[in-house]
C-alpha cells in the first residue's frame, strides 16, 4: 500500500461500546432519550403520508435562505381526493415558521347516538403529552376524510361541526365548545380540515383538560346524520384515509443537549 496515502480513512474499527455511545450521541442530537420502537407499523397511514409530503416540501428547499438554515416554499397546494392527504397552501405557510411538526394518531373513536331528540356524533382523542419540552403550538388541524356516498342523500347539503369536549356527563350530552364547521354537498369527497389551534394549545398547557373532540353531521334543516352514513371515514377505514391531527410547533427556547 502506498504509504504516501495521507488521509487513509479507516485506521481502526469502532469497539461495540464506542458504537453504542456513537448511536446514543446521534439519538441525543435528534433530541431522543432512546431509540423509538413504534408499535404500529403504518408508513402508509394517512398521517405518515401527509407528513412525508411536508418532509418533501422541506427537503426541496433545504439549504435555501441566507444563512443556509432557512426554508422557503414555492409549494403549490394540491387538494387531492384519491391520493394521500396532500398539504395545503396554508400548511406550507405554517411549515415556514415551524421548527417541528407532529401528527397524532387517533387513540379512541366512539360513534354515539342519543335519542329524544335523535343526535349522532363521533368522538376522537389524541395524546398531546409526548411533545418535546420547549415547543409551543403555532397551528393545529384536525383532518378527516369524506368519502363519496351514493344516492341516499342526493342534492342534500351537510353541515359538519367539530367541538372540543369541555366536560363529560354520564348518560347525557357532554358540555361542548364549537371550534369549526364546514358546509358541503353530500356528494363531495376529499379531506376536510378543521382548525383546532387554540384547543391544542390549551391541551398542551392543561393535559388534564384534554377530553378529546366531538364531530356531528346534520342536514341544513337540522336532521342529525350518522357520520358513517355521511361518508366520514373512521379509524377502521382505509389506512390512507383515517382521521388524524397535526400540529406545527415553534421552539420557545434554545435546545441545549443534555449532558450524558
Amino acid at each position, binding site marked *: 500500500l502506498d504509504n504516501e496515502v495521507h488521509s*487513509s480513512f479507516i485506521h481502526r*474499527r469502532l469497539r461495540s461500546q464506542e458504537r453504542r455511545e456513537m448511536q446514543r450521541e446521534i439519538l441525543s442530537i*435528534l433530541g431522543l432519550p432512546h431509540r423509538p420502537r413504534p408499535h404500529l407499523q403504518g408508513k402508509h397511514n394517512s398521517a405518515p403520508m401527509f407528513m*412525508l409530503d411536508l418532509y418533501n416540501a422541506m427537503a426541496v428547499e*433545504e439549504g435555501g435562505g441566507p444563512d443556509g*438554515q432557512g426554508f422557503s416554499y414555492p409549494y403549490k397546494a394540491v387538494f387531492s381526493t384519491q391520493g394521500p392527504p396532500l398539504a395545503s397552501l396554508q400548511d406550507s405557510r405554517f411549515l415556514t415558521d415551524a*421548527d*417541528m411538526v407532529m401528527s397524532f394518531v387517533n387513540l379512541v373513536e366512539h360513534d354515539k347516538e342519543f335519542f329524544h331528540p335523535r343526535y349522532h356524533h363521533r368522538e376522537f382523542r389524541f395524546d398531546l403529552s409526548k411533545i418535546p419540552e420547549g415547543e409551543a403550538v403555532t397551528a393545529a388541524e384536525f383532518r378527516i376524510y369524506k368519502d363519496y356516498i351514493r344516492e341516499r342523500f342526493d342534492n342534500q347539503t351537510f353541515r359538519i361541526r367539530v367541538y372540543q369536549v369541555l366536560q363529560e356527563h354520564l348518560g347525557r350530552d357532554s358540555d361542548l365548545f364549537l371550534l369549526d364547521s364546514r358546509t358541503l354537498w353530500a356528494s363531495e369527497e376529499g379531506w376536510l380540515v378543521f382548525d383546532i389551534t387554540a384547543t391544542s394549545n390549551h391541551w398542551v398547557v392543561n393535559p388534564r383538560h384534554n377530553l378529546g373532540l366531538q364531530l356531528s353531521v346534520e342536514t341544513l334543516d337540522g336532521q342529525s346524520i350518522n357520520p358513517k352514513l355521511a361518508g366520514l371515514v373512521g379509524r377502521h377505514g382505509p389506512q390512507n384515509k383515517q382521521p388524524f391531527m397535526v400540529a406545527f410547533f415553534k421552539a420557545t427556547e434554545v435546545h441545549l443537549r443534555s449532558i450524558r
Partner: protein
Amino acid sequence: STGGKQRSQNRSKPPKNQEALRVTNVAENSSSDQRQACKKHELYVSFRDLGWQDWIIAPEGYAAYYCEGECAFPLNSYMNATNHAIVQTLVHFINPDTVPKPCCAPTQLNAISVLYFDDSSNVILKKYRNMVVRACGCH
C-alpha cells in the same frame, strides 16, 4: 462510509483498501501538496445501516461530509482561512507546545429534516441545524 452517494454494493464491508477513498481524493485535486490542504471530504451517515429504518421514515441517510487537511503556514487562499487564523498561527509559533495551529473545521453548515415515528406511532418532522458541512476552513 466514505464512498460516493451511490456507494458500492458491499456496503456493509468497509472498502478492501484505501484505493476507493484515495481515488475520490485525487480526483478532486490535481497537485499533491493541495491534497494536504484543509478541505471537505465525503462522509455518508446511513440510518439504514444503523438498522433504524423501522422508525426513521425519511431520509435513509444523509451526506454529512467532514473536514480534513493541514492548516500550515503560509495559510494560502485555498485553505479558506479566516483572517484571524494568522494570529493563531503566530501564537502557535511562539508557544507550539500549548497553542494549536488553526484547525481545519466546518465554516458553513446546513440543516436537515428528519421524519420519524415516536414510541406511540405519532409522526414527527423536525429540522436539525448545523448537520451538513457546506464549507471547511482553517480557523
